[in-house]
């Protein structure tokens, strides 16, 4: 039984219903992928799950706690166990890389300066960027920012890791490196990782469990193996065009 699940999530912006009652159970300590074409509602779903957007209805469970009805203390405890990699990396411009990665530790822990320094160095090393603590985000490339964002996301050893379009805007090689890094960190830290993407190559590398969203609805769910072995004509109609365009089927 997974400790992260969503039930009947609905969200409407004005007259447009973006999420139409999505339910899903995420596999623990695995990479769960939410995929779909641009504008299908996958990022909105992710933001609902981390509390950035309040859904109109539906429930989000972290373990036995209903996130939407959680007390401030429960909510804080959930957020403490949650790391997020943003599409734009969302590094704080006014802070150095080291300060960025250390930030959650300073907020949530009473660690000493040397403990923080060691942990920051370890996390940066894990993402392949040792010794860049003193650099500022403006001095980094897009791929480096993304990796620093990952280092910040894992600094508190989170149970849940959310990644919003982790490799968008990156060259194919860097994109693959980010994918591999997410895979590696999920295995090493046993995090329940949720990746939102429209990149089918990422799905082939990462997707332990896959939820396909189309026009705000969950139209297919399964494993990477099922995705690869299922003939194209057995997928829902909405998914076929997307799969063909992604190059997964000739």
């Amino acid at each position, binding site marked *: 039984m997974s400790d992260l699940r969503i039930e009947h999530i609905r969200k409407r912006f004005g007259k447009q219903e973006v999420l139409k009652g999505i339910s899903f159970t995420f596999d623990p300590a695995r990479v769960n992928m939410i995929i779909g074409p641009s504008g299908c509602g996958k990022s909105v779903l992710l933001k609902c799950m981390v509390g*950035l957007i309040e859904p109109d209805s539906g429930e989000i469970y972290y373990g036995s706690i209903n996130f939407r009805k959680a007390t401030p203390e429960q909510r804080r405890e959930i957020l403490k166990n949650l790391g997020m990699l943003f599409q734009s990396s969302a590094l704080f411009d006014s802070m150095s890389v080291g300060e960025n990665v250390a930030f959650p530790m300073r907020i949530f822990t009473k660690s000493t300066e040397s403990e923080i320094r060691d942990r920051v160095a370890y996390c940066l090393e894990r993402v392949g960027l040792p010794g860049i603590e003193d650099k500022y985000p403006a001095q980094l490339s897009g791929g480096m920012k993304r990796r620093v964002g990952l280092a910040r996301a894992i600094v508190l050893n989170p149970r849940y890791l959310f990644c919003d379009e982790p490799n968008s805007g990156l060259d194919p090689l860097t994109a693959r490196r980010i994918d591999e890094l997410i895979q590696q960190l999920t295995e090493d830290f046993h995090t329940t990782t949720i990746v939102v993407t429209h990149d089918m190559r990422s799905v082939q590398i990462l997707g332990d469990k896959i939820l396909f969203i189309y026009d705000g609805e969950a139209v297919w769910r399964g494993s990477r193996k099922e995705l690869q072995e299922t003939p194209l004509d057995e997928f829902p109609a909405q998914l076929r065009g997307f799969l063909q365009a992604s190059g997964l089927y000739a």
Partner: protein
Amino acid sequence: MRIPLIQALEAVGTYVLLLRRTFTGLLHWRLYWQLWTQEFLIIGRDSIFLVAIIAFFVGAVTTVQTAYQLVSPFIPKSTIGAIVSTSSILELAPTITSLVLAGRVGSNIASQIGSMRVSEQIDALEVMGINSATYLILPKLLAGLVAFPVLVIYSCVISHVGGIVAGAFTGAVNPTQFGIGARSFFEDFQVVFMLIKAVTFGFIIITVSSYHGYYVRGGALEVGASSTKAVVVSSLMILIADYVLAQLLL
């Protein structure tokens, strides 16, 4: 007509809710102390030169123009000192300084917070369980409430210096006569009134600019527009508050 009215009421409501949020969810005082110090330096120290230049010339011009109008031999020269001094304390130092700071500090705050909004840095704070309004706005507000009265007192002193120098330079009034005039109409309450204005205008500039930055949507273009709007609205609010305070307290 009804829609702009509703929009204005919504904006006021959102502004009040943001203020309420700003004063809740404090984390560690140590963290806010560091932020307060940074903000105090940005608002206070970095404005000293600009305020000095403007205050000096405002004092000088007021002296020259007052001398130009008081041509009667029956009016003692010290009257120039009295008028310039009272004008500086009651109106010129607090209002002109605040209007200048609305441009310098207000646009800086709106564009800083706005940039953080569009680059998901505010979302990153929220996902970490940090009340972004408290974290971003409260240190600025507290720093402003200290820095503004200090800057206004400083501006008032420099404005007097400007008046004395201009009076001596043009031969309109010598420093002794200026001093006699300034002292003859001085009341302690004038300084209290000046400080009340400084605190009120500081509050308006910081909160209005923060509001415009915090709720910006879009990209760089919208950040620039929100910065301009913050300055315009702050300036307008300062002038309205100036009138209301004069009506209530004098």
